[in-house]
C-alpha cells in the first residue's frame, strides 16, 4: 500500500481542521486573505476526495485505506480507526465538491470573514470524519463537530425572513436547528452507550464498529435489545436526515443560513443522518432494522408527499428548496428502508445527486438574493432576461430535482422506485405521485420566476459573477455526467450495498 493510501483519510479530516485552527491566526479585517486561505484548504480536500474516490478499488469492495491510530486504551478502548467503503466513497467526494463550492460562493461574506471560514472548515472536517471513521466514539465526535458550528454560522451570517404577519429571525432558525439536531444526538448517544454496555456484557467492551459488527453477527445482541436500540438511531440520525415529523428545523434552518452554509447543510450534512442509519443502525442491529423498516418507509413516503405539498404552498425561494430537500430526503429514507440492493444503491446515489443539485439551487438563489434582496416568487419575475446564466443553472438543477431523464436525479429516483416497487408497492405508487408533485412546484416556479414577463424593477440586476458561474457550471456538469453515465458511482456503491445487505 502506498503512502497516500495509508494517510489519505487522516489527511482529509485533519486538513480542514488544521485549516480552521490556522485561520484563527489570520489577521482580522482582511476578508480576502481568509477567503483565499479557505480556498486553498478546501482545494486540498477536493483533490484528496477525488483521489480517494478514484483509487477506491470497486472490484475488491469492502473497506479500504484502513488505518488505526491508538487513542485511549483500556478500560474505554477507543481507537481512531479510519476506513472507507463504497457507500462512503461517493459521499466523501460529494463533501469535497460541495465544500469547495461553498467556500468559493462565500466570497460575498465580508463581515467577520475569518471567523466564518474557521467554522465552515471545522464543519467540513466533521463531515469527512463521520464518513470515514470506524469507531462509534469518533463517529459521534465528528457528528457533533459538524453540528456545532451551525448555530453561529446561521446566527451571525444568516438572514431573517419576513412573512408579513410575523418574522422568522435567523436566531430562531439557528436555535431551532441546533436544538433539534442535538436532541437527535441525545438519542444517538444513548444508543451508543447501550451498545457499549451490551458489548461489555458480551466480554469485549468496545466502541469499534468492526468488533461490534462481529458481536452482532455472532448473536450477542438479542432481538429485544435490537428492537429498542434501533429506533434510537433511526430517529436520532433521522432528525438530521429530515425525517418526518422531525424535519421542521430543516426549512427554517436552511432559509436562515447564508448561501454557502445552506449549500453544505442541505447538500451534505443531511446525508450524515441517512449515512448514520446505514452505517450504525443497519450494520450493527440488522434484526432491529428489519423490524423497523416498515415504519421508516412509511415515514419516508410521508416525507416525499408532505415535503412536496409544503413546497407547493411556499412563496419564498429558499423555503421552496428547503421543503424540496425534505421531500427528496424522503426518497433516500425510502431507498434505505427497502433493504433491497437496487433501492439502497438508489438511496446512496440520491444522496450524491441531491447533494449536488440542492447545493446548486442554493448557490443560484444566493446569487439572486444578493442582487435583488428579494426571495418572494410572486415579486421576482422574468429573471431569465437579466440573469441568464443564473437562471439557466437553476433551471437545470430544478429539472434534475423533478427527475428529468438525462440528469442525475432521474437515475437515483428510478432506482429507489424500482426497489420500492419490489418491496412496498402501494408506497412506491405514492412516491411516484410525489415526484409528479415536484414537477408541479418546480415547473410553476421556473415558469413564473425565471421565464415570466420581465419586470422593469429588476432591470438593474447583473448576472452571476465569474466565481458563481464557475461553481454553477461545474455542478451542472456533474449532474449531467451522473445522469448520462452513473456507472462510475453505482458500481462503487453497489459493491458495498451488497455486503451491507448480506446481513439481512
Amino acid at each position, binding site marked *: 500500500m502506498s503512502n497516500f493510501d495509508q494517510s489519505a483519510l487522516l489527511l482529509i479530516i485533519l486538513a480542514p481542521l488544521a485549516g480552521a485552527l490556522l485561520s484563527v491566526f489570520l489577521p482580522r479585517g482582511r476578508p480576502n486573505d481568509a477567503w483565499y486561505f479557505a480556498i486553498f484548504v478546501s482545494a486540498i480536500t477536493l483533490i484528496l476526495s477525488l483521489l480517494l474516490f478514484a483509487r477506491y478499488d470497486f472490484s475488491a469492495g469492502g473497506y479500504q485505506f484502513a488505518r488505526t491510530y491508538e487513542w485511549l486504551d483500556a478500560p474505554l478502548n477507543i481507537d481512531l480507526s479510519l476506513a472507507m467503503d463504497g457507500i462512503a466513497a461517493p459521499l466523501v467526494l460529494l463533501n469535497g465538491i460541495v465544500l469547495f463550492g461553498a467556500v468559493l460562493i462565500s466570497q460575498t461574506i465580508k463581515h467577520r470573514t475569518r471567523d466564518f471560514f474557521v467554522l465552515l472548515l471545522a464543519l467540513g472536517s466533521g463531515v469527512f470524519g463521520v464518513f470515514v471513521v470506524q469507531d462509534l466514539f469518533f463517529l459521534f465526535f465528528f457528528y457533533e*463537530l459538524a453540528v456545532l458550528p451551525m448555530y453561529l454560522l446561521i446566527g451571525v451570517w444568516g438572514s431573517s425572513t419576513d412573512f408579513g404577519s410575523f418574522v422568522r429571525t435567523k436566531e430562531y432558525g439557528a436555535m431551532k436547528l441546533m436544538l433539534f439536531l442535538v436532541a437527535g444526538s441525545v438519542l444517538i448517544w444513548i444508543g451508543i452507550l447501550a451498545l457499549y454496555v451490551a458489548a461489555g456484557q458480551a466480554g469485549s467492551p468496545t466502541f469499534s464498529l468492526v468488533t461490534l459488527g462481529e458481536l452482532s453477527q455472532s448473536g450477542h445482541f438479542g432481538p429485544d435489545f435490537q428492537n429498542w436500540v434501533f429506533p434510537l438511531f433511526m430517529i436520532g440520525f433521522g432528525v438530521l436526515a429530515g425525517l418526518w415529523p422531525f424535519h421542521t428545523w430543516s426549512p427554517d434552518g436552511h432559509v436562515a443560513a447564508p448561501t454557502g452554509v445552506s449549500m453544505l447543510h442541505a447538500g451534505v450534512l443531511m446525508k450524515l443522518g441517512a449515512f448514520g442509519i446505514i452505517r450504525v443502525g443497519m450494520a450493527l442491529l440488522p434484526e432491529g432494522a428489519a423490524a423497523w423498516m416498515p415504519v421508516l418507509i412509511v415515514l419516508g413516503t410521508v416525507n416525499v408527499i408532505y415535503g412536496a405539498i409544503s413546497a407547493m404552498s411556499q412563496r419564498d425561494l429558499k423555503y421552496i428548496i428547503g421543503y424540496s430537500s425534505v421531500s427528496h430526503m424522503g426518497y433516500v429514507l425510502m431507498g434505505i428502508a427497502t433493504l433491497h440492493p437496487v433501492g439502497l444503491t438508489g438511496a446512496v446515489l440520491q444522496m450524491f445527486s441531491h447533494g449536488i443539485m440542492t447545493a446548486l439551487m442554493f448557490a443560484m438563489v444566493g446569487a439572486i438574493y444578493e442582487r435583488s434582496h428579494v426571495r418572494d416568487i410572486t415579486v421576482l419575475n422574468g429573471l431569465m432576461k437579466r440573469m441568464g446564466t443564473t437562471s439557466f443553472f437553476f433551471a437545470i438543477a430544478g429539472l434534475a430535482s423533478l427527475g428529468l431523464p438525462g440528469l442525475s436525479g432521474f437515475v437515483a429516483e428510478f432506482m429507489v422506485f424500482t426497489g420500492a416497487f419490489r418491496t412496498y408497492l402501494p408506497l412506491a405508487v405514492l412516491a411516484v405521485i410525489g415526484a409528479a408533485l415536484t414537477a408541479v412546484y418546480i415547473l410553476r416556479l421556473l415558469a413564473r420566476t425565471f421565464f415570466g414577463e420581465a419586470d422593469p424593477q429588476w432591470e438593474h440586476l447583473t448576472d452571476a459573477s465569474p466565481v458563481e458561474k464557475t461553481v454553477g457550471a461545474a455542478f451542472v456538469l456533474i449532474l449531467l455526467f451522473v445522469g448520462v453515465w452513473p456507472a462510475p458511482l453505482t458500481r462503487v456503491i453497489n459493491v458495498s450495498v451488497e455486503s451491507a445487505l448480506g446481513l439481512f
Partner: protein
Amino acid sequence: MSGLTDNLYLLTPEFALAGLAFLVFAVDLLLPEERKHLLGWLAVLGLLGLVVLSLLLLPGKEATLYGGLLAIDGYALFFKVLFLGIGVFIILSSIDYVKLHLTHPGEFYGLLLFSILGMNLMAQSRELLTAYISLELLSFSLYVMVAYALGNPKSNEGSLKYIIIGAFSSAILLYGISMVYSSLGVTRFEGISAALSSITDLRPALWVGLALIIVGLGFKLAAAPFHMWAPDVYEGAPLPVTAYLAIASKAAAFALLLRLLAEAFVPVGDRWDQWQIIVAALAALTMLLGNLVALAQRNLKRLMAYSSIGHVGYILAGAAALSPDSLLGANGIIFYLVGYSVTSIMVFAALIAFFNATGQEEIADLAGLADRQPLLAMAVAIGLFSLGGLPIFVGFTMKFYLFTAVANAGFLWLAGLAIFTSLISLYYYLQVIRQMYIQPALAAPLPGEEDNPDNEHSSAEHTHTPSHHLPHDDYEPLPRPPAALLAVVVLGLIATVALGVYPAPLLELVEAASAAILPGG
C-alpha cells in the same frame, strides 16, 4: 501502627503552604498600599514552587500518617497538584480584580492559600473528623472571601447566608459522624468498610448517621435539594471568589467524597449496590434542577451557579457508578473534575476581564463582545460549548467518558438523563453565546443611567429600546486585558482543545490516582 511523627517530612508541602500564607500576611504589613498587588505574584510563585516540591518529593510515596488519619498516595498527589494549579490560575485571574475592586489584598491572598491547604488535606483525609476539620478550614476561608466586597450589600448578604447554611450543614455532618461513630466505633474509612462488612444487621442510628453525612456533604457540594444557598452566594461574592467557589471548592468536596466512598463504602460489596441508588437519585435530581433553573437566569454569576449545580449532578452520577472492580467511574469523575476546572477557569478569567473593563455582569451586557474584544468572546464561547459537551473541546470527551462509566455500571437511565440535561444546558449556554456573537453591541449608557450605577440592566429593557443598539461597525472596543488574565485565557484555550482531542496522557495520570483509592480495580 506507626508513630505520630514518622514520615512527617511527607507533609512538607502542607507545612510550606501554611508558611507561605503566613509569609503573605507578614509581607502585607511591610508593603505600601500601591504595591500590594505584588502579594499576588508572591503567592503565585510560592504555589508554583510547591507544585515543583510536591512533584519532586512525593511521586511513588505511599504512607499513612498520624496513625491512619492522612494518606500520602497517588490520589492525594494528583489532587494536590490540581488544587495548587487552580490556586495559581485563580490568583492570576484575580490580581487585577483585587487591585480595582477590593481592599486588604494581603488577607485575600492569605485566606486563599489557607483554603488551598484545607483542600489538600481534604484529598488526603482517611478519617471522618480529619476530613471534617479540613473541610472547615476551607469553608472558613471561603466565608470571609465571599464577604470581601465590603460596600456591596449583596456580598454581605451572600456571606451571611453562606455562614449560616455552612454552619448548619457542618453541624449536620458532625452529628452524622457522631452517630456513625456511636454505631460502629470507628471513624477511619477503612475501619468503616471493615465494620460494615462484618455487621449483619444495620442499626437505625447508623442509617441516620450515614444519611446525615450525605446531607452534610450535599450542602457543601450544593447538590439538590441542598443547593439553595449557592446562587445567592455566587451572585454576591466578588467574581474571582465566585470562580473559586464554582471550581476549587467543588473539586475539593468531590475529592473528599470520592475517597470516602471508595475506601469506606464501595468495598462493602452488596450493601454498596443498594446505596448506589440513593446517590443516583440525588444525582438525577441535581442535574435536572440545576439545568432547568439555569434557563431562567439573567445574571452571569447566577447562571454559572446553576450550571455548576448541573455539573455536580453529572459528577454525582459518576459517584453512583463507582464499583469495586472497575476504575471507569473513578477515572470519569477525576477526568471530569479536571476538564470542568480547566474550562471554567478560562470562562471565569474572561468574565473577570470583562468585568474589570466594564463593571457589568448581566448576560445582556455581553452583547457585541465578539466585536468589542474578540479573544474574550472566543474564550467564553469555547468554554460554554465545552461545558455544553461539544467537541473538539474537553467537555465532550469528559462527558462521554463519565457517561459511559455511568451506563456501564448499570445506570443507563441516569446516563440518558445526564445526556438529556446536557441538551438543556446547551440552550442556556447558547443564549450567552448569542449575546456575544449575534446581538450588536449596546450603546454607552444614557446620561440618566450613568448617574445611577445600581440600575438593574435587565435584558428586556435593552431589547425593547432599539435606540440602544449601534450598528456593527460602531462599537466601543474594550481595552486589551492585562497579561496575567490573557495568559490564563490563552492557556485555558490550549488546554481545553488539547484535552479534548488527546486526553490519553492525562488519563494515565488519572488512572494512577484512582488506582490508589480503588486497589481492586
